[in-house]
C-alpha cells in the first residue's frame, strides 16, 4: 500500500506534517520545522506509543522509508526526534539548526552537547 502524496513543488511544512501523520498514524504530536526557510532541511518531532520498546534507528526507518523517494534529492536533510510519550515529557523541545548563519564559518562551533549527568 502506498498512500504517499507527491509534493507539487517543494515540500511545505503542511505537506510534511500530513505525510508524517500517514507514516505514524497514532502520533499524538507532530512538529515540523523548516530549518533554513529553503523547504529542503526539516526538523521533525514525532511523539507516539508506536516507538515504545524500539531502538532509535528502527524508529527513524519508519519515517525514512515513507520519505524514501524524496531523500536526499528533494529533502536534503531531515533531523528527527522520534519520542515515546514518556521521553517527550522529559524533552526540552530544542531544535537543532545546522546553518544558523550561512555567511559565517562560526556556525560550525559551539553546539550544545550535554552529558548524561547534566540532564
Amino acid at each position, binding site marked *: 500500500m502506498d498512500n504517499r502524496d507527491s509534493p507539487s513543488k517543494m515540500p511545505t511544512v503542511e505537506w510534511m506534517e500530513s505525510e508524517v501523520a500517514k507514516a505514524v498514524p497514532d502520533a499524538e504530536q507532530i512538529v515540523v520545522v523548516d530549518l533554513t526557510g529553503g523547504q529542503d532541511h526539516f526538523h521533525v518531532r514525532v511523539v507516539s506509543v508506536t516507538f515504545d520498546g524500539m531502538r*532509535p534507528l528502527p524508529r527513524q526507518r519508519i519515517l525514512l522509508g515513507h520519505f524514501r523517494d524524496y*531523500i536526499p534529492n528533494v529533502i536534503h536533510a531531515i533531523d528527527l526526534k522520534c519520542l515515546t510519550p514518556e521521553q517527550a515529557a522529559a524533552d526540552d523541545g530544542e531544535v537543532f539548526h545546522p546553518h544558523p548563519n550561512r555567511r559565517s564559518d562560526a*556556525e560550525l562551533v559551539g553546539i550544545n552537547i550535554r552529558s*548524561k549527568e547534566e540532564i
Partner: protein
Amino acid sequence: MMSDFEWQPKQLDELVGKNSIVLFMKGTPETPQCGFSNRAAQVLQSLGQPFVSVDILSDPRAIPAVCEWSDFPTMPQIFVNGELIGGSDIALEMYESGELQEMLAEGDDKSED
C-alpha cells in the same frame, strides 16, 4: 592508503569491523562542511576516545556507495561496533541518554574476551 579504497561493501564492512567507532561525514572533524556532520563529530569527540572519520566529499563515489551499503539516505552516518546507529540526531540522543557509552563499554568487554 585510501587511494585504493573503492567503497566496495566488503571494504566498508572491513572498515567498520576493524574500528569500534567510524564516522562518515562531510569534511573532517576539524573542518566540517555541514552542521549535522559537525554535530556528529562533536558528539564523538565528547566520548574521549579515538574514532575514524571518513570524508565522503573526498570522492564522488562515496555518498551513493555508502548510502546503498548502509541503506541509510543521509550523511553523516555513525557506526559503533560495526553497527549503524544512525545520523547525528541519534548519536546525540544516545550520547545524552548514556546508551552510546554503554554500547562502547560492551564492545570493549567483547574484545577483551
